[in-house]
């Protein structure tokens, strides 16, 4: 895992991405108990070229040069199945920019804040996303004011109310 994170860190160091952050189930591990997952979601913010075009090709080329291999829509990087996900809306971009530094062993990495994980899961809205929200609410130290602010700014308060109403 540390080797995987070192390779991801290199993406930032070499300016192939503006920044990256772990999201999804793996990010939730930093705040709550483990649930089984197959892949690590690495969100990336890609710098746009002078033409305004955004391409992931340089990122993939670099990773393959570091020994990454393709497996379905994923890359296997140093023994970990990684899904690279470009920031796809204002919420994921904010979550990337405001991610916090954590360490695994001796290797630093960037992890989305629990409040953003909840907001993204609510927006995605699958059953497993709702389960993640419930887990984080029960086990993580959530900043309620920050969560409300995020949900409000990203038009997710209605989904939040529906989620809360669905809980026992």
């Amino acid at each position, binding site marked *: 895992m540390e080797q995987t994170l070192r390779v991801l860190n290199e993406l930032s160091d070499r300016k192939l991405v503006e920044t990256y952050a772990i999201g999804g189930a793996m990010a939730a591990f930093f705040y709550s108990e*483990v649930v*089984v997952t197959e892949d690590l979601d690495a969100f990336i913010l890609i710098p746009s070229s002078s033409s305004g075009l955004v391409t992931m090709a340089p990122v993939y080329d670099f990773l393959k040069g570091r020994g990454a291999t393709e497996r379905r829509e994923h890359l296997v990087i140093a023994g970990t199945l990684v899904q690279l996900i470009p920031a796809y809306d204002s919420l994921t971009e904010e979550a990337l920019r405001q991610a916090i530094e954590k360490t*695994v062993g001796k290797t630093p990495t960037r992890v989305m804040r629990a409040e953003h994980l909840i907001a993204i899961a609510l927006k995605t809205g699958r059953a497993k996303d709702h389960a993640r929200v419930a887990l984080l609410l029960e086990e993580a130290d959530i900043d309620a004011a920050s969560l409300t602010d995020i949900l409000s700014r990203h038009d997710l308060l209605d989904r939040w109310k529906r989620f809360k109403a669905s809980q026992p």
Partner: protein
Amino acid sequence: MKTPVQEIAEEIFRRKQVARHAAARLSIEEKLRILVEMQKRANEVRRSAGRPEMFVWHLT
């Protein structure tokens, strides 16, 4: 008034909640070791059910 069985069930659920909170506070390194074990066990079930296996991480 709770029945004895209800009290036993409540105590079981209370203990489960305590255990989950303790699991949430393990180090990330320990959680990753647990994840790999969970992936392996999930594959045992998947194999027996004839489903494709999930990728098991190699922690390096």
